């Protein structure tokens, strides 16, 4: 199961990383772009949230650091600059590498923890650096909170921890806490691999001053000794300390991202033990003390407490309650609720649980420590109800609020089978609505909270420690819910489908297209062999229906395969930025028409050629800022990447306003490199000279730069694009810039071909190469030396014989005219003499396999409807 989740996470994370990177670049250009900062923040935040589902702590921590930084940028506490963008981009790159690693090996590399630690520390150094905080001061999320922490932000105390604290120390801590010097709970869940970067968690936690009690617990239950890895830290620490927050943070500064610090509510420190006792003296005390308390007469209350303490035996439970009460009252402004609880305790001989338990939020970051520290499962129902109590208490009477609280409380009790409590609560809600006051509900809730544990014994056992990786097996199907099938499931609006499945569907539809082509053959046979015109006609009718359906299916699947060019365009802002910085050039990259879509094969194959063109432009086209200024241009150059659809093609242009291509230089370079001879170079028009850059072995730079050169020339661009059935053209004006234009078919999955006969065999010719078919009377074919030509509408078209090109014996034909296929190949027109034209059809081209692989001149093979294999020609190679 976790593999499925991971498989979903990986593409999501990549997409989000891409969004983050392009957002960061936008932000760098325009630091006040609020949309961009929100976009980046959210993307990073989502990665962080989802990554928490997997065993990728290092990744989560690094992303968390980035998120914190972005949070400051978002709240204007930090100004974004290029150095910061660099840092964030580097971190995102690292995350990207880890995502690749997760995909390959399901795990992060061994050094991930160390890398995350280093990079996160680097990021965090920028935190808070602009609001006047001392440099080097610990800066983590907690410290940067605007307010010191609200009074109700409390920690849940692990019971074991309190038990470790001697009663006297506990009372002393309580006294201080009541006086406003908060006692803090420090929960520290070290990274399992932390030993490797020199961290000794025990030593780290010992550095925290003012320690009152320390609880150590195993994060995961110990397995057998044979399986124990002594170098994987499996311990969690919970420390109670009277040190102020800043000191704790200083001591734990290297481990802050693994540490939570929260003040402890004084109430939670109260621990009373002793012998039971009884007597009217206690009842009297309770009465007097309650009255003083209600009137706020603390001095008199203090006196009453002191008086009774002097007479009651020190080993009595009630006397100890008085000690705590005394401590609570030692504060200049005692907490009335706490004092009331302790007065009641001394008066009744028992301590009622506090109303409103802690919220289940005081958890250690990252991995949820499985120690007894704040196990939210144990008291889930209690927590839920306590939360309702607290929010009602705070909101006061609010009919809108009451409704959902009512549902929740009733459902919880229903869930637990507490029918009596439910009846009481229902009555309380009715009374509350009547009286327009939350008081009845509050007291009914408090009663429930103070009553029997809100847990079914079997439920407690049914909650084992669960490893997230195995959750699928751990979550048992719920008893009795969903008796019916989930009939009302609304279909999701979009699906993410594995590309391989689309490709398979595509191939199947392709096969269908080909199979349907058998029907006309069948119709012909019905008529010719079985002499049934009727049958032949019916087959043709059926064929028409199937043909239409197949075409619709094909069209639909093509749409599914369409991807926006944004898929590749989005890589460029980052790339151009990095290269420009490296080259010391200033470039404004503009993207247009990113929504233009084309088949995914085209889009995917376009990446490299486009990269090459852009790099070439950056490297050779764009001048350095000084040179631009000297030429009267703005120092910042512009590169425009523009996509648009033109008929059946997607056209992509790369336009720069750089120095342009100098035909004279090209001629010189081409001759020097031996690409062309001097005479040929002289004959070329300027445009033709520019086209020389696409010749193999040509590169305009004196030395091959590591950016655009890489040992290959622009000829690679041409080859790739033409393989896809596209065209490349360059236009340039010296001093003004260069535009490279790529035109590619929108889709290439199904190729339309024409079947032709030559030398007694059938061949396919891709339809997109054919300009027209003509029959040329023999007498109009002219011979110039050995070459044949004919004139078509005042243009001389060279003629070639297909059979000769294929080295096949020519069969002399006595016909008065020649069948000529006029083709457009590599920018020129050629007439191909064949024996006969046949029908056109849509085919799925399969590449040549086996012994045929090396043979030039063929684009591939396809299956004909009658089962024959048809060779499809690649005219570019053939001519």
């Amino acid at each position, binding site marked *: 199961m976790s593999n499925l989740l991971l498989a979903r996470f990986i593409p999501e994370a990549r997409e989000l990383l891409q969004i983050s990177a392009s957002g960061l670049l936008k932000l760098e250009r325009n630091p006040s772009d609020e949309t961009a900062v929100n976009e980046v923040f*959210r993307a990073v935040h989502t990665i962080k949230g989802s990554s928490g589902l997997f065993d990728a702590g290092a990744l989560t921590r690094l992303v968390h650091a980035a998120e914190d930084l972005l949070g400051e940028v978002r709240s204007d506490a930090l100004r974004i600059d290029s150095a910061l963008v660099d840092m964030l981009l580097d971190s995102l790159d690292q995350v990207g590498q880890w995502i690749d690693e997760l995909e390959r090996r399901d795990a992060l590399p061994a050094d991930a923890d160390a890398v995350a630690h280093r990079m996160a520390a680097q990021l965090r150094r920028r935190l808070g650096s602009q609001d006047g905080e001392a440099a080097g001061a610990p800066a983590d999320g907690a410290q940067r909170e605007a307010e010191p922490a609200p009074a109700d932000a409390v920690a849940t105390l692990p019971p074991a921890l309190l038990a470790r604290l001697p009663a006297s120390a506990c009372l002393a801590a309580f006294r201080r806490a009541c006086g406003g010097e908060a006692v803090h709970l420090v929960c520290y869940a070290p990274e399992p691999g932390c030993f490797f970067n020199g961290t000794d968690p025990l030593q780290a936690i010992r550095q925290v001053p003012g320690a009152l009690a320390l609880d150590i617990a195993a994060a995961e239950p110990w397995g057998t000794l044979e399986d124990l890895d002594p170098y994987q830290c499996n311990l969690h620490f919970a420390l109670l300390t009277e040190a102020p927050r800043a000191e704790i943070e200083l001591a734990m500064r290297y481990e802050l991202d693994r540490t939570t610090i929260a003040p402890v509510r004084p109430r939670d420190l109260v621990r009373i033990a002793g012998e039971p006792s009884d007597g009217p003296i206690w009842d009297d005390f309770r009465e007097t003390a309650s009255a003083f308390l209600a009137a706020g007469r603390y001095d008199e209350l203090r006196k009453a407490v002191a008086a009774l303490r002097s007479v009651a035996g020190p080993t009595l439970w009630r006397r100890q309650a008085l000690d705590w009460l005394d401590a609570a009252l030692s504060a200049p402004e005692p907490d009335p609720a706490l004092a009331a609880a302790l007065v009641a305790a001394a008066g009744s001989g028992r301590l009622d649980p506090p109303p409103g338990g802690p919220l289940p939020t005081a958890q250690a970051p990252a991995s949820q420590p499985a120690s007894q520290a704040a196990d939210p499962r144990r008291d889930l129902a209690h927590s839920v109800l306590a939360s309702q109590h607290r929010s009602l208490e705070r909101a006061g009477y609010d009919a809108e609020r009451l409704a959902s609280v009512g549902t929740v409380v009733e459902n919880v009790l229903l*869930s637990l089978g507490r029918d009596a409590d439910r009846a009481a609560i229902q009555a309380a809600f009715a009374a509350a609505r009547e009286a327009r006051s939350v008081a009845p509900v509050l007291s009914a809730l408090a009663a429930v909270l103070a009553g029997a544990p809100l847990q079914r014994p079997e439920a407690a056992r049914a909650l084992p420690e669960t490893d997230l990786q195995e959750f699928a097996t751990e979550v048992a*199907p*719920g008893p009795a819910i969903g008796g019916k099938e989930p009939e009302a499931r609304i279909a999701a609006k979009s699906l*993410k489908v594995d590309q391989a499945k689309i490709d398979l569907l595509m191939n199947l539809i392709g096969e269908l297209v080909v199979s349907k082509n058998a029907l006309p053959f069948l119709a012909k046979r019905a008529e010719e062999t079985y002499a049934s015109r009727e049958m032949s006609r019916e087959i043709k009718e059926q064929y028409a229906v199937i043909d239409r359906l197949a075409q619709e299916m094909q069209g639909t699947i093509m749409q599914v395969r369409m991807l926006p060019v944004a898929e590749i365009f989005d890589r460029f802002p980052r790339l151009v930025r990095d290269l420009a910085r490296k080259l010391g050039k200033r470039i404004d990259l503009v993207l247009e028409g990113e929504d233009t879509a084309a088949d995914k094969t085209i889009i995917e194959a376009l990446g490299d050629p486009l990269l090459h063109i852009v790099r070439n432009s950056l490297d050779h086209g764009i001048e350095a800022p000084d040179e631009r200024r000297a030429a009267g241009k703005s120092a910042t150059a512009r590169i425009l990447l523009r996509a648009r659809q033109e008929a059946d093609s997607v056209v992509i242009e790369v336009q720069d306003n750089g120095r342009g291509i100098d035909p004279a230089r090209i001629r010189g370079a081409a001759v020097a490199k031996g690409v062309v001879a001097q005479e040929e170079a002289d004959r070329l028009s300027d445009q033709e000279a520019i086209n020389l850059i696409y010749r193999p072995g040509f590169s305009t730079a004196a030395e091959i730069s590591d950016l655009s050169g890489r040992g290959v020339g622009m000829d690679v661009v041409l080859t790739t694009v033409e393989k896809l059935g596209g065209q490349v053209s360059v236009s340039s004006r010296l001093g003004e810039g260069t535009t490279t234009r790529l035109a590619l078919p929108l889709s290439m999955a199904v190729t339309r071909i024409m079947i032709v006969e030559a030398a007694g065999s059938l061949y396919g010719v891709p339809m997109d190469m054919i300009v027209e078919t003509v029959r040329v009377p023999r007498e109009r074919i002219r011979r110039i030396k050995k070459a044949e030509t004919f004139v078509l509408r005042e243009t001389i078209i060279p003629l070639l014989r297909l059979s000769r090109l294929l080295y096949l014996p020519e069969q002399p034909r006595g016909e008065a005219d020649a069948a000529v296929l006029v083709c457009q190949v590599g920018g020129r027109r050629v007439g191909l003499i064949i024996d006969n034209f046949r029908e056109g059809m849509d085919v799925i081209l399969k590449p040549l396999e086996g012994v045929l692989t090396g043979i030039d001149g063929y684009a591939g093979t396809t299956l004909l409807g009658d089962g024959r294999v048809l060779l499809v020609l690649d005219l570019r190679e053939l001519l």
Partner: protein
Amino acid sequence: MSGKRILVVEDGITMRMFYQDVLGRAGFVVEEAANGVEGLEKALLGGFDLMIVDINMPKMDGYELVSRIRREPSLQATPVVTISTEAKDADATRAYEAGANFYIVKPADPVLLVETARLLTGAPV
């Protein structure tokens, strides 16, 4: 008893799949919305026993969504659980103030999530 229906409002695809899987397995009917606006639209179509709302979302964040839900008469009685990566009390307090009934820190423990859903929908634990 009919299947308890939960609306999960969460922008992360992986997280949605996680909820769908964990809660679906436990017998809940889970529907999804990818942001606050979509969440509100789906919620208004009605019939949910519980809403699980992520805090940090595009278009309309969790706080805003929860307070809108509480202003809708037809949704006032629907329990809402907010989920966030933030373990800070200030965030929890803000969610409760907006009208949430419970606050869970991400990544939610699957068992805890299922138990919470059962408790809040009145399904047997």
